[in-house]
């Protein structure tokens, strides 16, 4: 049906762009006139809009969680700006999810550190450094012999 100078097929194609607010003023107006006059397209629009809002909400939550983890990590690693520490500590006192995440991350850090420490001190490196020094000395000797012969041959 032609409403607002647009057919339902074209509106169907423009719908996602309309929901994401990517259309220019002229098309936006045309689509909204069409939607007001066409119940079928309006129904489609409400479904798309709902899905879009849900996805947006999820994305926002993930982003917030990432920001929270980033701040807590900075705080625990001693990498946070001094000017930010006070503000952050007041957020920590107010918001339970921050406190919970902080506890979890510090627990995780402790677990990792213990495990890493154990690994580091139980591995046997077979005196690799001695072998390296040997290798270095022989390569140094080889180079001086080569240098000597190149000078000699010249």
């Amino acid at each position: 049906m032609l409403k607002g100078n647009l057919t339902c097929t074209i509106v169907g194609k423009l719908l996602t762009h309309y929901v994401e607010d990517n259309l220019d003023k002229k098309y936006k107006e045309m689509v909204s006139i069409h939607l007001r006059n066409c119940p079928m397209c309006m129904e489609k629009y409400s479904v798309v809009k709902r899905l879009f809002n849900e996805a947006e909400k999820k994305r926002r939550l993930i982003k917030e969680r990432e920001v929270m983890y980033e701040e807590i990590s900075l705080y625990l690693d001693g990498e946070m700006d001094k000017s930010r520490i006070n503000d952050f500590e007041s957020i920590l006192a107010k918001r339970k999810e921050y406190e919970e995440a902080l506890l979890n991350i510090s627990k995780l850090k402790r677990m990792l550190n213990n495990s890493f420490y154990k690994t580091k001190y139980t591995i046997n490196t077979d005196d690799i450094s001695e072998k390296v020094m040997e290798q270095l000395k022989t390569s140094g000797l080889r180079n001086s012999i080569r240098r000597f012969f190149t000078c000699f041959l010249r």
Partner: protein
Amino acid sequence: MKLKFKNDSTEALINKAQNDDFEALEELIRREEKNIYATLYYMNARCDEISDLVQEILFKVAKNIKKLKNPKTFRAWLNQITIRQFYDTLRKKQRTPIKITLENDYEDKNKEFEIPDNSTSPHECILNDELDLVIKKSIDKLKEPFKMTIVMRELQGLSYDEIAQATNSSIGTVKSRIARARCKLQEYIKPYMC
């Protein structure tokens, strides 16, 4: 550890090593060998290749120590070499085709056929604590840049700045990588956290 260098900081050792003190150089690489070994172990390099890889890395460090201009950037520099060497080996491994040869079968008919032992290696035996294995597997599940970043941070205790230098990335990237790696690790290890 040599008692002579007991009180020397890494920077002091680097200064001495740059002035042709071989003993100081040896002490310097001895202090770092376990760090690098463990880093590669968590990066999941093959057990039998780790020793060779560590040797190559430390050789490069020892050979080029004079090229290091600022001793403060030593850890970042060392890790840069580690990363480069690790990925080089991975690339080479992908390029080398697997060779299958039947020659040995004709030569030693009497020799017993050796079955490769895929069970835990001596290193892993020591680490056969369930939790340690869970941690290793969880780190292994992370994608490459996250894995490297979290191992450098937690195992070697590098600062964000040093990690950024070693991985050639910005501080912002390091921050978000650490946060996301921790987020993921926490999910994986959650059942074991008490």
